[in-house]
């Protein structure tokens, strides 16, 4: 492959990797500290619609970012010659005995936790929050449903804050790789 093409591939992998991380972290900060408080300034019914719309869109950004982060991360490691198509697939310093390797594994663990939280929010908690009640629902069912909604909203808040904290740790780990890792 020509050197110039290799250089541009390296730039594009790095660019999309950085862009995905920026979207994930910056988006989480904007949702938590800017859009959340702004939502409280309008009537509750409208705030609920706004919350649903913003969460719908933000989840697309989250899934796109998580996918791009892992794909471009693996491509970067492969381009650096740290992942190869033979056994063992990981080359030094991508080993447990090296700080670089431990930091990359730490990043992978964080990514998996973010993925699990994303699955929980998208496929378990959000459907509980947005599900509609059918006609003829009894008062006790309505109360139970509202309780479940409140609990789902609380768990989404906890998981989103945990995700933000984990993403900040991931940024520290990622930045440390340039100087050989931190773990």
């Amino acid at each position, binding site marked *: 492959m020509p050197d110039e093409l290799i250089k541009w591939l390296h730039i594009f992998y790095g660019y999309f990797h950085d862009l995905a991380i920026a979207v994930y972290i*910056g988006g989480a900060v904007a949702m938590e500290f800017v859009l959340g408080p702004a939502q409280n300034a309008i009537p509750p019914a409208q705030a609920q619609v706004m919350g649903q719309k913003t969460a719908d869109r933000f989840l697309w950004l989250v899934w796109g970012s998580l996918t791009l982060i892992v794909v471009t991360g693996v491509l970067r490691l492969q381009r650096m010659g740290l992942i190869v198509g033979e056994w063992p697939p990981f080359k030094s310093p991508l080993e447990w005995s090296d700080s670089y390797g431990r930091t990359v594994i730490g990043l992978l663990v964080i990514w998996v936790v973010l993925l699990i939280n994303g699955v929980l929010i998208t496929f378990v908690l959000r459907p509980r929050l947005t599900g509609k009640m059918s006609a003829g629902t009894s008062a006790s069912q309505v109360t139970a449903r509202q309780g479940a909604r409140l609990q789902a909203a609380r768990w989404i808040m906890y998981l989103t804050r945990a995700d933000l904290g984990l993403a900040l740790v991931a940024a520290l780990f990622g930045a440390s790789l340039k100087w050989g890792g931190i773990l």
Partner: protein
Amino acid sequence: MDTVLGTVHALAWSVYAGGALTMEWVLRYAQRTMPPSQVGVVCKRSGQRYRWFGLVSLAVAGVTGLAMVLRIDDADLAGRTGHPELSLADPYGRTLLLLAVTWALLAAAVGSMAFWLHPAQAKRSPAGSTPEAVQRDRERVGRAIHRMDRVLKLELLLSIVALFLGASLHAGGVG
């Protein structure tokens, strides 16, 4: 120290660029389903908060970026891909200069939004104004909203360019 600087720099750019993309992609979409009066309230609240996030993160990105450049030495550069040089004769130096110019343009865009366009949008006609004066104020607010829209799009484009320039530095720059 380098790790801390690198982390804070990356976080500042993330909050800035990721926040700008989210405000455009998420907030604008949500606004389409809201009544105009509430769009105004949400815009005002989110704009008031976001301008501080934008200004602080851009300032932090600038300060940490400058500190990182000042800490670069020849041994550090020799160990990087393509052995770049901190000179305008080298793509690395030119890309750094372009990044600094982009940062300055972003600072000007965010500053103009925070201290000029956003307050201009919030201006209301005083009680007892004549219908002509109210109409003039409305037109002024309309112009401020239009200008804000254009500056926001420019800001988004510049922040994407800045991320690209920053990422290219790992491969020796593009300038």
